[in-house]
């Protein structure tokens, strides 16, 4: 069933120490697409040659192929952006109070500030690849971009990381993009979503 697109009423956000552009927003084209902001959820990144071994020491999976994402527990993932850059995503926790670390966790493993530099959105629904085809030149259809795949590409002329993984049991795309472009990107996505919500 498809319905007219609507925006869920924004619950008055609690007075949080962090505020993200578009935070707490959800945009729906019912039955077809849902775009949600997950920016408050915890994510951290590490870069350097020693990162893969360090991750294994932490009990996290070793993701040897760049541009792949693997589950690391319930609602937790490790995303490999290269052979030396990895992001840890945690859907269970919010990360609001922490000071971003800048000191190496191990000699060649430098923390990245992705909690503050990038917003985290999630796009789910059957038409997600069709929607992205209006904004992005990479084929994100299931056959060539299955769950577990990551693409570092451009969307509506800005850089974006698209990760295909389950969220609360439903497959969808996590989108990570520069927070300063969030307002622009949200409106571009909303605009592209219009046609998927016709009654």
């Amino acid at each position: 069933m498809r319905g007219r697109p609507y925006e869920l009423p924004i619950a008055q956000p609690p007075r949080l120490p962090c505020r993200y552009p578009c935070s707490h927003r959800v945009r729906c084209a019912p039955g077809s697409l849902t775009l949600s902001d997950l920016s408050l959820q915890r994510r951290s990144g590490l870069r350097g040659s020693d990162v893969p071994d360090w991750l294994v020491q932490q009990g996290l999976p070793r993701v040897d192929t760049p541009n792949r994402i693997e589950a690391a527990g319930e609602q937790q993932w490790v995303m490999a952006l290269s052979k030396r850059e990895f992001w840890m995503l945690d859907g269970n926790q919010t990360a609001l109070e922490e000071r971003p670390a800048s000191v190496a966790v191990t000699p060649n493993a430098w923390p990245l500030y992705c909690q503050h530099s990038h917003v985290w959105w999630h796009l789910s629904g059957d038409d997600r690849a069709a929607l992205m085809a209006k904004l992005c030149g990479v084929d994100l259809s299931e056959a060539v971009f299955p769950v577990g795949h990551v693409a570092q590409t451009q969307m509506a002329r800005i850089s974006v990381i698209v990760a295909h993984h389950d969220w609360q049991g439903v497959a969808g795309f996590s989108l990570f993009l520069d927070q300063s472009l969030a307002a622009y990107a949200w409106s571009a996505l909303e605009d592209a979503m219009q046609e998927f919500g016709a009654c």
Partner: protein
Amino acid sequence: MNPRLDAPYGSLIDRNQPRSFTFEGETVNGYLGDTVASALIANNHWLLSRSFKYHRPRGPLSMAGHDANTLVQTASAPNRLAEELPIDLGEAVSGQNYVGSLKRDWLRALDWLGRFLPVGFYYRAFYKPFGVWRLWEPMIRHMAGLGVANLESQPPYRDKQYLFCDVAVIGAGPAGLSAALEAANGGAQVLLVDENTQLGGALTYHRFDTDVESSTTLLSSLHQQVLGHQHIRVLSSALCNAWFTDHYLPVLQGDRMFKVRAETCILATGSTEQHVVFRNNDLPGIVLCSALDRIIRHYAIAPEGDVAVLAGNDLAYHTALQAHDAGLSVTAVIDLRPSPDDETLCEALATRNIRLETGATVSEALADRDGLRLGNIMVSHLAADGSVAGERCRIACATLAMSAGFMPAYQLACQAGASLSYDDASAHFKISGLAEGLFLAGSVNSVHTLEAVCADGRNAARAALTALGHNADTPETVSCTARVNHPWPIFKHPKGREFVDFDEDLQIKDIVNAARQGYRDIQLVKRFSTVGMGPSQGRHSALPTARLIAKATQRSVTETGVTTARPPVKPELLGLIAGRGFDPHRHTPMHEQHLALGAHMIPAGTWRRPGFYGDPVHRERWIREEALAVRNNVGIIDVSTLGGIELRGPDAAEFMNRLYTFGFLKQPVGRTRYAVLTNEHGVVIDDGVAARLADDHFYVTATTTGVDRVYRDMLKWQAQWRLSLDISNVTAAFAAVNVAGPNARRVLEAAGCDIDLSAEAFPYLDYQEAAIADIPVRMLRVGFVGELGYELHVPSMMAHRLWEIVMAAGAPWGIRPFGVETQRLLRLEKGHIIVGQDTDGMSHPGEVHLAWAVNRKKPFFVGCRSVDIVMQQPLSRLLIGFSLSPDAPRPKEGHLVLKDGDIVGNVTSCEYSPNLDRVIGLAYAHPDDAAPGSIIDVRTDNGVVVQAIVTTLPFYDPDNERQTL
């Protein structure tokens, strides 16, 4: 309305749904599925428009949207093809290019004046004497204009979408359908594109045989299989308008442009039927054979009056047979050849009592009494050499269908680099030199019989499958010996008006004259005569032009060739190319707060920044007030747009030392240094402040617009040097504000900053880490504006709270937010340069007083050798400060600095300073004039030269006492 033929004729119309529209103010009836063109001719109305140059009456030629004869005007837009406009468009339609009425165009007299308007006439006649073109141009444009643009019309929402496939098949005729099926059955994902509403191409209208059954059965079978196939996506009413590298195909459908990315591409684009060139061959009622086929089969229209057929090949006979069998009155077939290749066709005509005239042509068409429709044709004998040898008979007919042959629809293939050749003896075309992964199928490949066309389609699919790495059957043998092209369907008439190009009203003599004028090259013939420049892009004119030029220059058609095929294949809407506008713009985390404070936002690179706070009408006042607040009290500015780059690792200092001009190895932890970046040419390209956070950790700022490039350059050097460090662009991770002014320290103390801010504990150019409330802050005691100031860098998502806290703490002092325009004035008062504004592509450090920031004792930095070389040479210019009285004409950025009348430099910055009550600025001047007190000449608007006084920098607080307080 005339009655239509019974079903199965009329495959496109729904007889149960009558529709109507108005043409030239009159109501026209038809059915859903009709186009404006078909509904008009169903009502015996063949006059659709007036021609471009001579205002001759014109009607449909191809019925496929392939010519410009049917361009009509609708309320919202001009130049729309009547064959493509649906009857239920909902807009009034009218003809184009006439004065008075379409039927009685006052400018039709131009047709009689035509002999005074030869090709190239405009260039030669109206340009002399010099300047006279300006007088002629509006008149000529008015007479030769096309439709009228509706400037009020609001474009609909148009957008673009990528589509991905393994095989794109362009054209869904028998070849395309066969190819799509074969490829899909072989495991490929197929996209099938066709410009018509109905799949099937010629199968939907042509009868390939005396037996009509076989083609109908084949069509429905192919149709069914294709539409039901899970690996085939069909786009109908969709035009593939270009081929770009690596099979990137723009496909236009409705209000959307699909950007198709195909791994391989099969062109089954068919062929374009060619007209016969004879006198008055443009009269309404004279159509291509395929057009008459379409009129009958698609729209069930039986045109009034008698029908004659002019045949250059056997296929035209099928048109005559089909028309007769549908109930039309077919009087004659005139064959350019001595006899048809298939002798049984003569018998088929005979049994139907259709007269056959062989070895003859139509030498002239004659209009009916109104002059708006075909009335008679003059049939003449053809001599052995193909020329007209004398009149044979006159035949009355209202419709003439003609076919001189078929030219491959070569446009897409040739855009992809292929070349088209023509065998003069056999009149066969060949396309060769196809790009990798590109295949031809069907009549574009010069295969014309139905079985061969389908086999050719399957073979193309097999080749595509092989290229994709799939298994494919071995190719079938395809042979086609059918001759479809008549070698010389061009018949000159003493009175002319034998049209080669209908769009541009060009006759045989126009083309021949071009050759006589010395234009042998087909490209030059095109530009001189305008042949092929009209909306149909030479679809019908290219071949006769090539033949005429070949003959005139004693060459072969292949040697003459056709003009370069370029996108687009058909005229397209710019709105579809534009699509939705994507204009990425960045907001800082304090964006909403700035708006709430009434900021006037201005673009700064891709960012939106407050220029100042207040309405733009009182701009000067807001900037003055903000500037005074910073100088005398305290202000706050959002500098989140500053670039931020982190260098971490054992080689961080070494890397800094190699990139920037200063020395950084011995920079103490907790101190900042000014960092200047030169490129390998020794030109200053960026600057910033480098803070050393730890032995192995630098945080360096870059300019708002320069940071992306600086970061890229760093990564590229690192890819070569392989040092031990990590380089991160942290621009988005940190937001920043600068709190500046004599009261800045007090405000930050009141905000609860948890470190000692005194000058002793935190002196100028120091770096410290602190917290305000619970927000971690990187504090740099630097100041672009030259006051006591602190730059506070915080994690982006905490910045809005920092802003709130500082604004609240500053309220008792009346803290004032200030914008980037105010900041530019304040830094100018201090003589601080902005890289990119006060520097250009030639500025080396010596010219902009940055020699002090260049360390020449270290072994290397990027550009060091160039800096050495240029700085040893005598200076040719120097950046200086100048001032003027406030009432003098004010120089602007870019105004020239003169010395003895020669240009020696230019103004780079200039503002009125309310603090100094002077106009102040920076400019490049001759080194001889650089001493304070010298006078330089600045040429301002309208050539007014003002004398500016060279002034010591900085203009304000020359001893720099305020920033170190």
